[in-house]
């Protein structure tokens, strides 16, 4: 039977390795490269970052028209003027000039994809993702492609044929054939669609994607089936068995998120004025909620994880303090195996080496909270305050944020 508090020397405590990694969202051109790796037919093309290269890419393709497509990770590119059909090199130049640097829903276009234009007879939709509830893979196929699938699901849910796939069995050709029949695609598209869906399922499973989506999947007048767009989200946790360096390098992160990524911190940038640091994802989420409930709003989500490294607090505090949105900082710690005095020492050591401009409010509870508070006590000032509860600390930090 356990008795009392177990004391272990923190120096011998191993750091928890291999925390979860963020997902990797691919741009269309990367998604097409990814698909091509699984022999899924995509249009010939090239990704470029300058107008001159766009023209050169079109000339290299050697046939017009070509499509000039803005590469941003947000829907509605076409409506925003980010997709244009060019009949000549001059038109490529004009459109590339317009599109490069364009702002689409807050995303600046830095890359355009130039590809040979396709003749389209029909447009379909295909995707695979995980159905968390069924704990199986879910394939969705629709003869109504080219529009947002959410809109189809809303207006005409019967137009989406769904298939649940047991990961142990995988997707068989006969199951794929039945599925295509159920979706009511043009019979001319059947063989091509079955072929692409089998390859797309492989791309999804062997490629470790959370989501693969082709919208539109097109039937050409010649009878071929072809992926005209590519939306892919890769599971960051599987990066150890793939070479995703190029994909990782182009992730859209703001300055804060990039710094947090480099410091290996679990961070999400938000728009409020209270910087948040908590130990644990659930506690960090809960901290956001409590700040909100007392009338404030969080500038970020940040989970420093277990342990009490001063270095981690230095990185976390620096990232938060560099955020111009932040007017006050809430450090919310609950000691478990890592004891209160260890965390307090980590925070004090961090504040020794960096100057933080925003006032900090600490709530420290859990294992040896009293000892931890005693360590913080002599360092308290207007710039470093302590509150006994999460709620009191939230009120104080929101008040300080003004």
């Amino acid at each position, binding site marked *: *039977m*356990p008795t*009392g*508090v*177990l004391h*272990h020397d923190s120096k*011998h405590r*191993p750091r*928890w*390795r*291999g*925390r*979860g*990694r*963020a*997902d990797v969202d691919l741009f269309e051109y990367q998604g097409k490269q990814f698909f091509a790796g699984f022999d899924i037919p995509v249009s010939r093309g090239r990704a470029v970052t300058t107008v001159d290269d766009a023209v050169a890419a079109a000339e290299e393709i050697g046939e017009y028209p070509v499509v000039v497509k803005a590469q941003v990770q947000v829907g509605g590119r076409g409506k925003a003027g980010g997709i244009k059909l060019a009949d000549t090199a001059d038109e490529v130049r004009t459109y590339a000039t317009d599109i490069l640097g364009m702002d689409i829903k807050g995303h600046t276009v830095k890359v355009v994809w130039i590809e040979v234009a396709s003749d389209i007879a029909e447009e379909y939709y295909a995707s695979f993702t*995980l159905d*968390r*509830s069924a*704990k199986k*893979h879910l394939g969705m196929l629709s003869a109504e492609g080219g529009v947002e699938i*959410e809109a189809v699901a809303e207006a005409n849910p019967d137009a989406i044929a769904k298939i649940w796939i*047991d*990961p*142990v069995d995988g997707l068989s050709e006969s199951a794929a054939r039945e599925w295509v029949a159920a979706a009511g695609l043009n019979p001319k598209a059947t063989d091509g669609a079955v072929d692409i869906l089998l390859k797309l399922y492989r791309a999804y*499973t062997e490629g*470790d994607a959370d989501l693969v989506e082709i919208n539109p999947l097109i039937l050409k007048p010649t009878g071929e089936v072809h992926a005209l767009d590519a939306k892919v989200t890769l*599971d960051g*946790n*599987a990066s*150890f*068995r793939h070479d995703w360096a190029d994909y990782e390098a182009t992730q859209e992160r703001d300055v804060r998120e990039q710094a947090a990524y480099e410091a290996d911190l679990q961070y*999400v940038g*938000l728009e409020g004025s209270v910087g948040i640091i*908590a*130990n*644990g*994802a*659930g*506690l*960090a*989420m*809960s901290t*956001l*909620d*409590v*700040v*909100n*409930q007392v009338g404030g709003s969080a500038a970020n*989500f940040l989970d420093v994880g*277990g342990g009490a490294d001063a270095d981690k607090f230095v990185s976390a505090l620096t990232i938060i303090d560099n955020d111009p949105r932040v007017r006050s900082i809430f450090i919310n710690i*609950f000691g*478990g*195996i890592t004891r209160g005095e260890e965390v307090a020492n980590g925070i004090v050591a961090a504040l020794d080496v960096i100057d933080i401009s925003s006032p900090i409010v600490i709530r420290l*509870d*859990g*294992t040896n909270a009293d000892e931890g508070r005693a360590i913080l006590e002599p360092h308290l000032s207007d710039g470093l305050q302590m509150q*006994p*509860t999460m*709620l009191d600390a939230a009120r104080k930090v929101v008040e300080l944020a003004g």
Partner: protein
Amino acid sequence: MAIFVDENTKVVYQGLTGSQGRYYGLLNRDYGTQVVAGTNPKKAGTDVEGIPVFASVADAVAETGADASCIFIPAPGVRSAVMEAAEGGVKFIVCITEGVPAQDEAWFFNELKRNHPDVQLLGPNCPGIISPGRSNIGITAGHIAQAPEPGRPNVGIVSRSGTLTYQALYELKLQGIGVTTCVGIGGDPVPGTSFIDCLERFEADDETSAVMMIGEIGGSAEEEAAEYIKANMSKPIAAYIAGQTAPAGKKMGHAGAIVSGGKGTAAAKMEALDDAGVKVGANPTGSRRAHGRDRQGALSPLPSELSGVVRGIRG
């Protein structure tokens, strides 16, 4: 009674010779858990502070009678470690490892269900399980949990979050409320053990008087639990859902904590649970006002809801 694990549970630690496995394996043994074996194919025949190391789970089971395993293997090896445990003959597998690929998780969940239906997997990416006073398997700080007392109302906990669970255990202890078992089901998209698996056992457990659920955004496990509760649960339940103000489309630390396509919001989960008669801690301010401060003057949002439930059954 406790659920899933008790003082008779014999545990083999896969990865006992690694830094994580060693640290927590010994900590668990200090707590009183029957840590009977470790595995490492390269170190069979050695021991870790007296705990024998075997080449495989099957060997450990044959030699020690281990009936549970705890996995501290880095993510790339988890898929084979889970299958080694199931094929080796243990019936309860706790996988602490974070960062396991979702494709692997989906695969071994279904593989176990089909070919090892009598095996219960907990995790991955979870803090483990503690039946206070009996057994602690994983990374929970044992001293913050109060053992259940016979003849008094005791609580069972099931949670997707680690730190919030510790907070719940700690504050229940401050209030002198015992815990039968606290199950950390973890924050991944395909958890081996669900809320429902735990609710079902807590309902059947005579020692458990009330249940606390800690959920978070993402997926629909809380909604499914609400349906189950409505149809099957007679014991009072308090719940808290983290992530009420989380933005859509962002994973909040846990791989499974994401609102996508308008699904998996805290609001929907809270509504479903409330509709099932669960006391949901929506607003910590209000709940504290309703229940008053505890003797520490430090009541936080979660357990105040639960303490109301417990107080209710205590009359």
